[in-house]
């Protein structure tokens, strides 16, 4: 399976990456998606998560073809 992972704004800048595709062996959680891409730290407390553009929690299930995004608190408007 393939999962697209995205990072935005200051988080993207800090991690030095904005988008990549991972190919896990089977279904996994958002937390495991993060771990697959960012080896050396757990999901930070204040990081927001979206799966397929809907807000999700770190233990949400991720399936083939999903898009998982991590980003800092939003500051629009």
């Amino acid at each position, binding site marked *: 399976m393939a999962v697209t992972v995205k990072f*935005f704004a200051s988080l993207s800048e800090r991690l030095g990456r904005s988008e990549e595709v991972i190919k896990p062996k089977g279904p996994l959680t958002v937390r495991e998606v993060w771990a697959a891409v960012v080896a050396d730290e757990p999901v930070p407390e204040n990081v927001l998560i*979206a799966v397929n553009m809907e807000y999700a929690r770190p233990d949400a299930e991720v399936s083939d073809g999903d898009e998982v995004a991590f*980003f800092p*608190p939003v*500051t629009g*408007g």
Partner: protein
Amino acid sequence: MTVRVEIRGSEFDPWVELSRYQETLGNQGKYGATAVFIGTMRDFNEGVRVKSLVLEHYPGMTEKHLTEISQQAIDRWGLLDTMVIHRVGEIRINEPIVAVAVWSAHRAAAFEACRFLVEDLKSHAPFWKREYLAEGIRWVEKTTPG
């Protein structure tokens, strides 16, 4: 009933947008109350002079989220029509950042729904501001309290 959500990469005139959009609405004679909020780029934020602003967003999710909350507001307050336009990219002082408008039969619904949309947009829509100051660049860390 019309929901308009638009992300704009260049300057827009909120009054022209409101005027043109309103003319297209099918609810002529039905709305008695229109509430509008315009957010504009200020030259000062958190005590520091700001030269310009760059707004990043999550393409796709911004539109999806704004459409969902517009629909929620319509259902909850029985609105007739809504409009949300939000800038991205480089924004200079005095340029509009966001325009939110709702059309309703009565004024209480219009005021409350407009406020709800602005607060939800500020706390949940995936936009991020970076400010260009006299000395460097900074990410805006949090939204000002409503």
